[in-house]
Each structure stands twice: as structure tokens, then as C-alpha cells.
């Protein structure tokens, strides 16, 4: 495992994987101290970024219609109460 602080993955899943890798490497404990320290810092950073990502996480909803994508907002107003909704539950 290389000391690669600058290469923390951008996606949540990649970061989680990286974090897992780092934990495993530290638990094995065969690395030189400095490399271990660097990994530890990277792990803490990964964890912090993941946490932020989770806390800010909002799903984005879009609708594909007529060959193009548009944003869609669900409101209670559209929850099946409209008069033209005879076919949906």
C-alpha cells in the first residue's frame, strides 16, 4: 500500500473501501512508522469526508420524459390527490 494522501477517492463507496484498506493495513502493523502515521491521517480524513457526505446527503430526483431529463420535486400536492389520477394508488 502506498502513501497516497492526495488520492483519496471522490465517491463515498471508494472512500469507505479506502478506509477499510487503511484499517486493515494498520492492524497488520508491518509498515514503517512514518508511513503508518501518514496512513492514519489519510484514514481520519477519509472518515471525515464520508461523514460529511452522509450528513449532507440528499437524493436527487429527476424524470425522464420525451427523451430528456428534468428535475422533479415531489410535493404532497402531487401525492395522488389530483383529479386526473384515476389510475394510480
Amino acid at each position, binding site marked *: 500500500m502506498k502513501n497516497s494522501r492526495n488520492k483519496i477517492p471522490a465517491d463515498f463507496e471508494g472512500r469507505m473501501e479506502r478506509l477499510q484498506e487503511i484499517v486493515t493495513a494498520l492492524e497488520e502493523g508491518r509498515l514503517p*512508522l512514518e508511513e503508518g502515521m501518514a496512513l492514519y491521517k489519510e484514514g481520519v480524513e477519509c472518515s471525515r469526508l464520508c*461523514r460529511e457526505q452522509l450528513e449532507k446527503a440528499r437524493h*436527487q*430526483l429527476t424524470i425522464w420524459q420525451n427523451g430528456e431529463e428534468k428535475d422533479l420535486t*415531489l410535493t404532497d400536492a*402531487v401525492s395522488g390527490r389530483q383529479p386526473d*389520477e384515476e389510475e394510480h394508488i
Partner: protein
Amino acid sequence: MSEDMTIQSVRQLTEQLRRMVERHFPFVWVRGEVGNVSRPASGHFYFTLKDAEAQLQCVWFRQQQRQRGGFDPLTGEVFETPPPAPEELLRQGTELICAGHVGIYAPRGQYQLVVELVQPAGQGGLAQAFEERKRRLAALGYFAQERKRRLPWDPVRVALITSPHGAAIHDFWRLAAQRGQAAHVRLYPVAVQGDGAAPSIVRALETANAHALRPDGPQVIVLIRGGGSLEDLWAFNEQEVAEAVYRSRLPVLAGIGHEVDVTLADLTADVRAATPSHAAQLLWPSRQELLQLLDDQEAALWRGMRRRLERQALQLDNLTRLLRAHAPQRRLERLESTRRRLALALQRAAREMLGGRQRQAEHLSRMLRSFWNPARLATEAREAVALEERLRAALPRLLSRRQQELLWWEQRLQAAGRQSVSRAEAQQERLALRLAACDPLGPLERGYALVSDSRGALLRSVRQARGGQELHIRLQDGALGVTVAQIRPRADTTATAEKGE
């Protein structure tokens, strides 16, 4: 036939008809509308099935009414809900499908259907079509467990196929908001009910699969719809929909209707959720879980680091101690203490060596004294003189005693010699007497004679002699030559021969 000629009783004819009818209609399905229902105390049901043109008397015996528990006796299908009670089925005017055999009830002279199974005819159409399709698709391997794929973990690009209106998308979205990392959910709007529903669902499945090839394309398809009647959910039982799900390259998660509803699309999907909300739960891990996972990882990170630091601190301590132990000052101190120890040992050894020599000398002189003692030598010389005197005095005594002994033995020898001569003479005399007594010629002096033949052999029996034989008789003082004149053996046969004795 002979029976043409005979007159039969009513009973006989009815019996023949009964046998004939029962042989021809051992099991039939009949569809019709229920009427004239009655249920006397026996618990049997009597009713008619009718349509516009005809009616059929039916009897449903109490023993047959159990409907055999929670499964279809014909298809083996297990019902999720128990079958309705008989009284609910037999409502005036409902359409039923009844199965059983046709029999003849002799007391009334009427034919009737002896019912074994009753099914409502109204739902029967769809339910039968569903079962039939289900069997067909199952045979094609649509529901095979081994072709089910796993959903991607915590997906970030999701294709949602449902109606943009209605409860399903709201239920799904509400649950989704608390789960997973930020994901992009793209809705492919479809009609979920009515004639156009099935084709629109098939199109949406195809479009989503086509989009999957793009970099921002979906990783998984979610197909959901709220609850409804079998008719409401029918689009999801259409074969084209099941086929589109089956063909999908992306894994499909289906949550259609309520928990009790099962559609063919559900069965074909890779993962089946009970409801739309459940679909969101199955699709994403909850954020709480993810945060907990992060907590765990952070703790592990810290643990791993601390353990490694502690280990290295310990190692550092050890090395420092070693280093100090090898400093020049310590080395000098250690050498000095070694020197002192050795010097002490040397002194001790020297002392011990000297003391040992002295003790040895004393011992030897003691031994010498014990061997070389003048007083003892004088005593021994005196003893030697005394012994010599005793020896000189003893010799003459010994000589005179030996001479006496010699004399005594001489006298005994002479006496013994004399005695033994006289004893031998006496014995010789005894033996001479015994010898004389044994002389064979001795008896001749007393008048006995010896008779022998011409060859000198002695005769002991008259049988040894022959008439006219020359014999020789020896007496004490000479011999006679005789001839045998007569032989007279003794009467008792053991006598000796007569020889002129």
C-alpha cells in the same frame, strides 16, 4: 337382450340407470348460478345451478365441505389466505364452478351433481390465467433462484419505474431520504394500471437498460406500485412485463402492491420487496447504519494506530536501556566490579590452599609416629625372647611324648598280628570241614553209589537206561561193570530207574 323380455321393477331400472350415469360422469366441472340454497340440520347443502336454459340439482355433503385446508386440491397451489367458508360461496345468484360426479337419487328419481369442489367463477378467470402463466414461466426458469442477482451495495444511480403520482413513489421517497449516500434517482414514468400500462412498463425497462450503458446510467432498476385488487395489479402479471424483467441486464428490485400481493413481475425480479417502502429499505443501508460503520472504522483506525505506537514506544524504551547498558562508563564500572570479585576469589583460594597443606602435614606426622615408636619396639623384643624360651622348653617334651606314642603303637601292632594269625587258623579249619562235607564222593562212604554209562554220563532216571546196556557203578572203594537186565519204573513215574543199587 334378455331384459327386453322381462318386466323390471322401478328399483331395478333406477339401479341400472345409476350405474350407467356414474360410469359416464365420474368427474365433471359445471358452471352456473346458485339458487334454492337450503341447509338442513344434517349440514349438507342442497342447491341448484342454473343458466338461462337449464338447471341442475346439486348436493354438497358436509364431509366434502372442508375444502381441504390451505391448498388447491387440483393444482397443489398453497393459498396465502384460507378459502372462503361454504356459506359465503353459496350465495343466491353468484356464479360458481362446481366439480363432482353425477349420481341418481333413487327415492326421488332424480339425477344430481354430488359436489366435491366449489370455486367462485367470477375471480376464477383471472386467477386461473395467473396460475397458468405462473406455471408456464416457472417452467421457463423465470423464477429460478440461481439466476437472481444481488443488488449493488448503496447504489448512487437508480432507475425508478412507477407512476409519478400516487402513494407508491411518495412512500418510496420518504424512506429513501433517510438512507444511503446521496444518490441520483431517475424516474421513468409509466401507467401502472389500465390497458396501456404493460407496454409502457416494458418500454421503461428497455429505456433504463439502454441508459445503463452510459457513464451516468443507472446501476439498478426499481419497479414499484401501490396495493390494489388482482385486476388493479394485472399489468404486472402480463407476460410481456415478466419477459422484460427477465431480460433486464440491470438487476431489478420489485415492490408491487401489499405484502400479500404477488405478481409475475415480482416473482421474476431479482429481489422482491413486500411494499414500495420496503424497496427503499432493501435498496440502501440506513444512514445511521453507515454512520455506525464509520464510527467502527474510526475506532479501528485509532486502535490500530495506538497499538502500533505503544509497541514502538516499548521498543524504543528497550533500545534506550540497551544503549545505556553499553555506555563506556558503565563498562568500566562493570569491569572494576569483575576485578574485585576475582581478587576476592583469588585470596580465598590461596588461603584455602595453605590451610590444606598444613592439615596434610599434621596427618602424615601422626601416621609416622604411630609406626615409629621406641617403647613399642622394646615390648616387642621382650615378647620375642619369651617366645624363644618357650620354644626351647617345648621341644624335649614333645620328643619324649612322641617316643611313648611310638612304643604303644608297636605293642598294639604285635598283639594284633598274633591275634590275626590265630583267627585265620580257626577259620581255615572251619572251611576245611565245610569243604569235606561238600565232597561228592563223601556219600559213597555211607553206601550210596554213582551210576554212569559207557561215556561217563551220570544216570539220574531209569528212563535213561536201556535193556542190555552196559553201565558203570562207582562205590566207595572201587567200581563195578554191570549190564541192565530189567527196567522197573516206579508206579508214580518219578522214580529213578532200577539199577542194581
